[in-house]
């Protein structure tokens, strides 16, 4: 491609500006967190004496260990179950294609654009009647259901693209449906399944609405829900709020930076199909 030097310089400058706009708020958050608790610092201003103890303070008042534990328990309840259900249903709809599969699939697709706010009111009463309000199940069970439209669409698309000849060859060799599923389709679907797991992990971790409506105790919520409660309690103490927010963000950022390639490609594919 013909690329002039000027084009390269313009491109570089724009990238750097965009990256700065993305990163500066985090820098401001970090610097502010080092100011004296209760003070009103400026946007970005290095404090005279950095108050590192704010992080310890925020760690204790946010009860970070319990929050992490709670989020992990919710993840364990949601992600494996949702991935398993979607994989089975995706195989059923995408490979076995029973009579009426199209109609069933369309019903799932209808849920793709559903805003969670649309069903939160009746969901509250439903969860209350089940007697699981204010427990982690109140987040886990509905989330599995709410993830199904996307997850089933995703896994169906995956199984539908696996070459038919492969399955037919296996059938001719006398393979059972179970054998076909477990020995041929699943190994070929590992990338799709792991991307799905990453997306569901992220969406569960960041789920806010269900957490604040269905669970009153922040220590039983997701990370995002706990962050909302933390803001409610320490909203006026800006350095402490910044320290707490950073702490709550840290696990996500670490996981993201560790698996960034996988994350980026999963999110890209996720929006392509979503």
């Amino acid at each position: 491609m013909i690329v002039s030097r000027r084009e390269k310089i313009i491109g570089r400058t724009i990238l750097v500006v965009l990256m700065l706009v993305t990163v500066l708020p985090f820098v401001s958050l970090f610097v502010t967190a080092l100011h004296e608790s209760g003070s009103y610092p400026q946007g970005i201003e290095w404090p005279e004496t950095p108050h590192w103890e704010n992080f310890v303070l925020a760690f204790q008042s946010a009860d970070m260990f319990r929050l992490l534990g709670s989020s992990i328990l919710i993840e364990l309840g949601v992600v494996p179950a949702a991935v398993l259900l979607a994989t089975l249903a995706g195989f059923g709809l995408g490979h076995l294609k029973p009579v009426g599969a199209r109609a069933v699939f369309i019903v799932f697709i209808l849920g793709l654009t559903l805003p969670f706010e649309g069903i939160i009111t009746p969901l509250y009463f439903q969860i209350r009647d089940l007697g699981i309000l204010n427990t982690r199940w109140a987040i886990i069970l509905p989330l599995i259901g709410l993830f199904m439209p996307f997850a089933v669409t995703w896994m169906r698309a995956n199984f539908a693209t696996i070459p038919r000849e492969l399955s037919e060859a296996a059938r001719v060799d006398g393979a059972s449906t179970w054998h076909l599923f477990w020995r041929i389709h699943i190994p070929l679907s590992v990338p799709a399944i792991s991307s799905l797991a990453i997306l569901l992990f992220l969406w569960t971790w960041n789920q806010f609405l269900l957490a604040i409506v269905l669970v009153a105790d922040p220590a039983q919520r997701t990370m995002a829900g706990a962050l909302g409660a933390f803001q409610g309690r320490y909203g006026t103490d800006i350095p402490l709020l910044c320290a707490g927010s950073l702490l709550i963000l840290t696990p996500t950022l670490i996981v993201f930076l560790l698996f960034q390639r996988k994350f980026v490609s999963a999110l890209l594919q996720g929006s392509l199909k979503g």
Partner: protein
Amino acid sequence: MPAPTSAVPAPGLGGDARPRRPSSGSRARSRHRRLGGDLLAYALVAPAALFYAFFVLRPIVTSAQYSFYDWNGVSTATWVGFDNYVAVLSEPKLVGAILNAFELILYFSIVPVGLALVAANLIRSIAASRLATAARTVLFIPQVIPLVAAGIIWSWQLSSDGLVNQILRAVGLDAVTRAWLGDFGTALPAVGVIGAWVQVGLCLVLILSGMTRIDASLYEAARLDGAGPVREFFSITLPGVRQEIAICVTVTVISALASFDIIYVATQGGPGNRTLVPGLQIFYLAFFEREIGTASAFSIVLMALVIAVVLPLQRLLRGRES
């Protein structure tokens, strides 16, 4: 695992309407096998379908049912017909929330997609460089953190002592500094900035990946024919990334119409309902004002709105492909 293990397969449609595959067995046998296969397929679909039906479809139906009643969640409900819908579509506060959501489309969708398109076009030539790879990671961070966190981070940046005003003062624009989220005139655009900040990275990376798939020889040919950068953009680049634009627009428009998290932490709908949006209004109606009927009617309206906006968009932007 909470999944029901003894799943009852959904009823198949009985009749065998599809074209038969060539089969070696007798007709009856293949029909029998076909039926068995269908049963198995539905048994596999059933657990997912049950969760979906119980936690998504059922609440939608209940929502529709509640929407015709006046109910505070405790006492007996009274039938009010379409009154709740009339309220949603006529009370200034509720209509205002819907209008705000549409204004948010400008900031959550049009601005980031437009920005991403221009930026992607300008950095196309260095898309494979090390800087661009680093940018891909950095620009994705807002997509990964919870929206609540984005809201908290930015309420601090947009406050009177925040980074935005600090920068404005530094360049001598003291006159325009203000508490951006607390000002009647700027609160909604300020919330929009937060949304744009979250979305622009995803749009950029998505559109850029579309651009790198465009055949480079097209550009060479255009340049040899003397086409300028503008002409090049409209006749090669834009058609080439049409699909990616469609996705960006759909995802961001939904995020605007269904916004909740960012506004909940940044403004709670204020000042004076200036940033009230349907999601937040439903939340307040249902859990603070105890107007379950109105909240449900608003939910139905919101779901209908999202579908009414997204379906034509899909047609318009994707339809003429293939």
